[in-house]
């Protein structure tokens, strides 16, 4: 589905992603774990193409120079130079860090904006799916996005990304700042999404405990480099991972 080879990202001279190889097979859930500033969000922005927009804006404003090198292959095609909306059209949809809900639009409108790429039929059936996945969203569908709690916002962000008909869903820190109960519920939803939509999912997260049981494969990122790679089970049993990312 997605293959990343020797990916490097620099902000000026700071190395944010260092020689990362990563693979997301079809219909698999892959996790990327790492602490603050390990490069998780940079990785996600690079995969979704948002980094190209950031680079253009920095260039225009005369700010930081952003350099990207390496290969990103999606279903066998090179996509390094495609912009974010083109990648979204191909099926790579990012559900960003901090959710970035449209605050003035209602929950329903947020989902409708998400359906920009969907046909009418797809939009209707996906909306039903999102409401069955998160029944809470149906109850609050008229409320403006800015008035939702963190958990509700995260459900909406995932729902909105699903409306864009992803084939590879990128979830950037979906559990950040949420209660254990909601974290558990969201991970159950992620499993259900994979099962019913038959898509690949890449999740990044700082706190690995709720995510590890769900992933087929996981990577541990430190200072931009992959230091460990293994199946979910292997990582669960690895003492280094346990001490570093379980917060025990």
């Amino acid at each position, binding site marked *: 589905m997605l293959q990343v080879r020797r990916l490097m990202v620099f902000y000026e001279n700071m190395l944010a992603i260092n020689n990362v190889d990563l693979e997301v097979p079809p219909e698999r859930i892959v996790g990327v774990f790492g602490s603050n500033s390990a490069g998780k969000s940079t990785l996600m922005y690079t995969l979704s193409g948002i980094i190209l*927009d950031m680079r253009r804006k920095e260039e225009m404003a005369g700010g930081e120079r952003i350099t990207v090198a390496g290969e990103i292959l999606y279903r066998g095609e090179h996509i390094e130079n495609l912009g974010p909306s083109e990648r979204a059209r191909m099926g790579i*949809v990012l*559900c960003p860090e901090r959710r970035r809900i449209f605050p003035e639009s209602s929950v329903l409108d947020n989902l409708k904006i998400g359906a920009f790429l969907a046909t009418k039929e797809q939009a209707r059936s996906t909306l039903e799916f999102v409401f069955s996945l998160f029944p809470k969203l149906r109850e609050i569908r008229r409320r403006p996005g800015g008035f939702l709690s963190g958990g509700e916002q995260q459900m909406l962000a995932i729902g909105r990304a699903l409306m864009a008909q992803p084939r590879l869903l990128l979830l950037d820190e979906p559990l950040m700042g949420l209660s254990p109960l909601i974290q558990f519920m969201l991970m159950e939803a992620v499993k259900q999404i994979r099962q019913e939509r038959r898509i690949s999912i890449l999740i990044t997260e700082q706190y690995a405990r709720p995510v590890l049981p769900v992933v087929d494969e996981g990577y541990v990122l430190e200072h931009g480099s992959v230091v460990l790679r293994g199946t979910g089970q292997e990582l669960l049993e690895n003492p280094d991972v346990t001490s570093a990312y379980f917060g025990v």
Partner: protein
Amino acid sequence: MEIIVYGIVNSVSLALMALGFTLVYGISRLPNFAHGAFYILAGYLAWVGIRSLNMGYIVSVLLTIFVVGILGMAMYRFFLIRVRGMPISEIIASYAMGLFILEALRWKGLKGMTFTLPVIYPGTIFLFDVPVDYQRLLVVAIGAGIVAGLWLFTKFTRLGLALRGIAQDEQAAMMLGIDSDAMATVATGLGSALAAVAAIVLLPLGNIVVEAGYQVLIFAVAVCIVGGLGSWAGAILASFIIGFAQILTVSYMQSHFQVVVALLAIILTLIAKPSGLFGRQKQLEERV
């Protein structure tokens, strides 16, 4: 009573002038300083259509709105896109474009009192004992119609929803497959077309003169700054504040203070609340 009736008419006129400007800024963060030029250009094109080419009123007007919309899109696609993201350059580039259009029109002979657009329906009626001509009532009706139309457009159409998305969080919208440059092209086209509509309903009340182009720009900028850049609700509220203030100065002082009121409104807003009445420059960043 007179003040209320004419205050409303004047406020809606201001809103019509400013809507296109605030729409483009709200969606794409592009200050389109060629807005006033498109307004006058639309008046001139409609005049050419009606008076020189004898195309009939309806055809000329529709064609004008369409052509000005296309010109707006072209201006973004081939010109402003190169300076996108550099606010000062955006202002200079679009203002240069506006200067070029306006001064080219002046050079082609657009001056004096000879250029007027016909009113759609001549005549006057009395509203609460105040004489109002039908054209001014039409201004209010079309202003209300445009606001309602824009609301429906951004609520129920795919394109309108996409514009709302880009307006609120550009990158989040890109992640969903909405292309920012395409939407900015649509937005400038729509904004210019709105300037054309405003010109066609407002210009019959006066002459088509180049100076009005600069004045419209000043009014549009004043309304947007007072209302909070990019906020539609703010723009409409600000139109009413400035509109009534202008009518009050006309009644109690002299009529040439109108522009002074607009400029004073900018200054007062920048002193008291720089983000404007409905400004949202900061609030988004504070939420986590």
